[in-house]
């Protein structure tokens, strides 16, 4: 029999200060003096107190663990001291799992006198959980009868009271036969019955056990505890237990809570007062979270539990069974992905669908099962919860953090399912007009990215209008967050489109309920909306580089929609975005713009080729306006960066075209090339560094030296600096026929 396993992670609700303490074997050795720790100990009196208590508990435990021979309490002051320590700490804070393990072994091994054993057992109050292995080893002590009958009884009562604190029960279930054999002991019988009552599963009900119970009943007379167990057996297997049992019975078992209940409650309250960080895991279910709370509060995501609406009992004539759940796996037992795979045909959703939200395995399952009622149950629950708990609906601000966590969970589940919940979408549509743009900001904005593509009028009134109002009146950071979220939204729509293209023949349960042209329109409206708010925001924020980054990031998705997402749509950025990027003071923005224009070109060329080759009859063609816009922009860009002719050649109505007369009035010399890759404010820093490297002796900073062969070197230098966008743009969009043309361009 394995004696004890040292748990590697102490579940103590205490602050752990030094590394040694996490290693249990180290602290068990005791007498450790750690200078580092003694320095750290001066943090707070409370910590110090905890630490000194911790130290004395450690000493006591290691004393009990090493105990070899029988020691008398009266003569041994060390034992007295340690025993008192254990008792007082147990009552105050409860004992860690390792402590319970050590003390159980001592108390049941019979090394000490019964009075000591009793005191030890009475102080076995768990601070968090009781390890199953300790219980199993205790049962083995029980089998070898080292301890007295009274201690055995006390242990059984302890086990019944603490049943819910045992971390796992599988091995304990395997010992069912052992417990059953204890029934023959007349004194233990009532408690063993109670324990078996807690342990019994349907598969434990066997004819030989029923016979044994009936024998016992014949011997001892009608005992309430035996009847309890028999009636439970009868409930599981009515065909095996044929005797009639009296129906009326108030309580089967005497109050076996013993001396522990009050202490457990005290410690539980104490732990709940402490901050959630230091709070030990208590049974791991939601039931303890419900402090003082209205019963119909839905914010707590229910724990997954089997649907108990089975009406399994057979006390009536007919067998009432709502579902065919004979062999189904209870959701509580679903722990691993392989379990899910093995049981996928016999799995049942939990009684409250809301619990899937925090259970990835059930989310997987939900993804496989296309059952309308699953989504509907979740829809009702989530819709009601969001409305009831929304902090800016209900004037009750103290649940702000909980609501935030809830939204976070909803968002995570949406990411997991790669799909928005319609109840959440409805909630957003209803609540965005009332939102202050501050409360749960990042959660709300991220949830926005999972809204389905709806008709434009709906999107406009429910999403774009309220968002625009907040957008224009909020900080730069908020503006960036909105653009980020709208980019995610666009990408989610495009991903759906790609997935649905692949599975076109499938019956689409959650289809976008829009046709391709419908989707194209909705996407186009989103892009126009972003173009509009970006133009305005760039002016409001003085062309902030930071914001421009988010705008261009959005267009990085837009420019590739045709090739990357197979959507027949390309929309150029508005001039209010294009020109600020082109004339930006920052090389990052300019480089980004170059990359975007290169991708536009690639997409447009591919579209043109498809159109010309007419492999398929194309439902959609890009309008000539898109090509025209692209050409105007590319003329302006090449004119600026390369040929120094933007002021003459830019034909865009909002472009850079200016009369020479006007330009001369600026008294800027050489105005023509002031935006080429040498003189452009975003590039001049590179040109300067290049000059310093190429002509280290020249201090005049003569930028006109960069021409001809040097122009090419300069380009190589720029590419080496990581301006890849510029590289792909120049290589694709600028026709470098011969060496002479560069030298000309360099003039």
């Amino acid at each position, binding site marked *: 029999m394995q004696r004890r396993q040292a748990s590697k992670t102490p579940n103590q609700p205490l602050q752990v200060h030094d590394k040694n303490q996490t290693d249990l074997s180290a602290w068990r050795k005791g007498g450790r003096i750690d200078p580092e720790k003694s320095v750290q100990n001066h943090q707070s009196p409370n910590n110090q107190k905890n630490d000194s208590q911790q130290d004395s508990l450690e000493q006591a435990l290691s004393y009990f663990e090493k105990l070899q021979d029988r020691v008398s309490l009266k003569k041994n002051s060390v034992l007295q001291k340690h025993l008192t320590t254990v008792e007082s700490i147990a009552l105050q804070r409860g004992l860690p799992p390792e402590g319970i393990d050590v003390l159980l072994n001592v108390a049941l091994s019979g090394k000490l006198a019964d009075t000591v054993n009793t005191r030890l057992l009475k102080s076995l109050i768990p601070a968090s959980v009781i390890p199953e292995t300790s219980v199993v080893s205790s049962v083995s002590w029980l089998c070898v009868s080292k301890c007295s009958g009274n201690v055995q009884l006390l242990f059984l009562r302890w086990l019944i009271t603490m049943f819910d604190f045992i971390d796992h029960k599988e091995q304990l279930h395997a010992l069912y036969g052992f417990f059953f054999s204890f029934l023959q002991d007349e004194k233990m019988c009532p408690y063993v019955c109670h324990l078996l009552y807690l342990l019994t599963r349907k598969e434990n009900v066997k004819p030989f056990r029923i016979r044994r119970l009936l024998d016992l009943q014949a011997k001892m007379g009608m005992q309430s505890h035996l009847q309890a167990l028999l009636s439970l057996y009868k409930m599981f297997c009515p065909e095996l237990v044929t005797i009639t049992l009296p129906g009326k019975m108030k309580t089967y*078992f005497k109050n076996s809570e013993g001396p522990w209940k009050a202490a457990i409650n005290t410690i539980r309250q104490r732990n709940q007062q402490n901050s959630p960080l230091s709070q030990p895991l208590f049974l791991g279910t939601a039931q303890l979270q419900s402090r003082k709370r209205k*019963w*119909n509060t839905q914010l707590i995501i*229910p724990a997954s539990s089997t649907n*108990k609406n089975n009406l399994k009992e057979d006390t009536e004539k007919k067998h009432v069974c*709502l579902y065919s759940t004979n062999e189904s796996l209870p959701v509580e037992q679903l722990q691993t992905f392989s379990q899910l795979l093995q049981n996928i045909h016999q799995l049942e959703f939990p009684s409250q669908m809301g619990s899937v939200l925090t259970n990835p395995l059930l989310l997987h399952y939900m993804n496989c099962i296309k059952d309308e009622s699953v989504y*509907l149950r979740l829809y*009702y629950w989530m819709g*009601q*919860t969001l409305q009831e708990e929304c902090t800016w609906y209900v004037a009750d601000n103290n649940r702000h953090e909980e609501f935030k966590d809830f939204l976070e969970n909803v968002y995570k589940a949406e990411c997991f399912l790669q799909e928005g919940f319609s109840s959440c979408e409805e909630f957003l549509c209803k609540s965005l007009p009332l939102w202050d743009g501050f409360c749960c900001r990042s959660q709300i904005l991220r949830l926005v990215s999972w809204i389905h593509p709806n008709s434009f009028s709906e999107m406009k009134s429910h999403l774009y209008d309220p968002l625009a109002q907040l957008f224009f009146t909020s900080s730069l950071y908020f503006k960036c967050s909105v653009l980020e979220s709208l980019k995610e939204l666009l990408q989610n729509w495009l991903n759906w489109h790609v997935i649905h293209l692949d599975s076109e023949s499938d019956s689409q349960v959650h289809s976008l309920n829009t046709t391709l042209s419908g989707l194209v329109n909705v996407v186009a409206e989103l892009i126009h909306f972003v173009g509009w708010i970006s133009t305005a925001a760039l002016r409001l924020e003085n062309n902030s580089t930071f914001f421009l980054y988010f705008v261009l990031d959005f267009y990085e998705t837009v420019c590739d929609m045709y090739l990357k997402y197979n959507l027949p749509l390309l929309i150029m950025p508005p001039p209010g975005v294009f020109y600020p990027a082109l004339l930006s003071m920052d090389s990052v923005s300019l480089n980004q713009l170059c990359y975007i224009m290169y991708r536009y070109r690639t997409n447009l060329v591919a579209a043109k080729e498809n159109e010309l080759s007419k492999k398929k009859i194309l439902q959609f063609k890009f309008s000539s306006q898109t090509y025209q816009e692209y050409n105007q922009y590319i003329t302006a860009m090449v004119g600026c960066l390369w040929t120094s002719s933007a002021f003459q050649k830019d034909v865009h109505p909002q472009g850079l075209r200016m009369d020479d007369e006007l330009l001369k009035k600026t008294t800027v010399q050489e105005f023509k090339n002031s935006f080429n890759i040498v003189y452009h404010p975003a590039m001049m820093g590179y040109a300067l560094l290049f000059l310093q490297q190429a002509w280290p002796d020249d201090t005049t900073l003569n930028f006109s030296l960069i021409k001809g062969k040097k122009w090419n070197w300069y380009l190589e230098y720029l590419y080496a600096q990581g301006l890849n966008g510029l590289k792909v743009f120049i290589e694709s969009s600028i026709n470098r026929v011969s060496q002479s043309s560069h030298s000309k361009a360099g003039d």
Partner: protein
Amino acid sequence: ENTDPQRTAFLLRKQWTLYSVTPLYRFSDAHLRDYARLLSAVIAAEKQKGLAVEIGLELDIKVAISSLPDLRGSDRDNAAILVQLSSRSPASPKTSEEKLLWSGWFCSVSGDDFSENVPEDFTCLPLFLTNGAESYTSIVGSWFQKTFDCCFRRLAISPLNLSWMAAMWTGCKVDKAASAMELVFSVPRLPQPLDISYAIHPEDAKALWDTVQKTPGEITQEEVDIFMDCLYSHFHRHFKIHLSATKLVKVSTAIASAHCDGIIKFLQSQYLTGVLMLLTELAISQIQ
């Protein structure tokens, strides 16, 4: 209406707290007795703080779940479900009478537009009314929530809907000499709460309403607004207080009385289903 007044008389003259309920999943009329046994075990377990209790035993608190087929607008509505908790005297269980502790009922009156769009697994009874200690509401409600995966929410009545009730109920005929119509207004943003009660003789109110309503049997928002504005201006003429700046919190008429917190008292059995129809509508709009 087709309700037998005898069978619903016990619903009258009691204060009911209103809730909206999302459709019940896998609820079946055929298992009401089983549900009652399960629920009574849950209540017993709750009272004994978690000790195991066998289902089906005779316990201190008796749970009865029954159907109230009279309470519906049409055949397409689900029959209302009544839950009653009563206590047995432990001294002499056979002889002594049972005392009703708590009752609650689920109903749907002309909610068929909603229920028709819901799959078969779901039972639509969107309105839930309770009378009795909140602790029992909590146990019963939690059990329904867990067992049928539904959500309960308190159903508040907005001032706008209260004014609709005021207008609708003013127009109803009552046989006996009716009690006064009373409107209670609360003045917002005061350090001490201040309520203004405005009582009108029912015949005066009816006369006013008859001049406002254009088509009998039909009410428009505009008519409701005119009716309330007339009452407000009358009040202003006498007391120089603009009631339109306050909040309507309670409406009492001979038909029923309703409070904005979601509390209702039915007074006339002939108008019971009529009032329930309006409340069903409000409950549905809260869950959709």
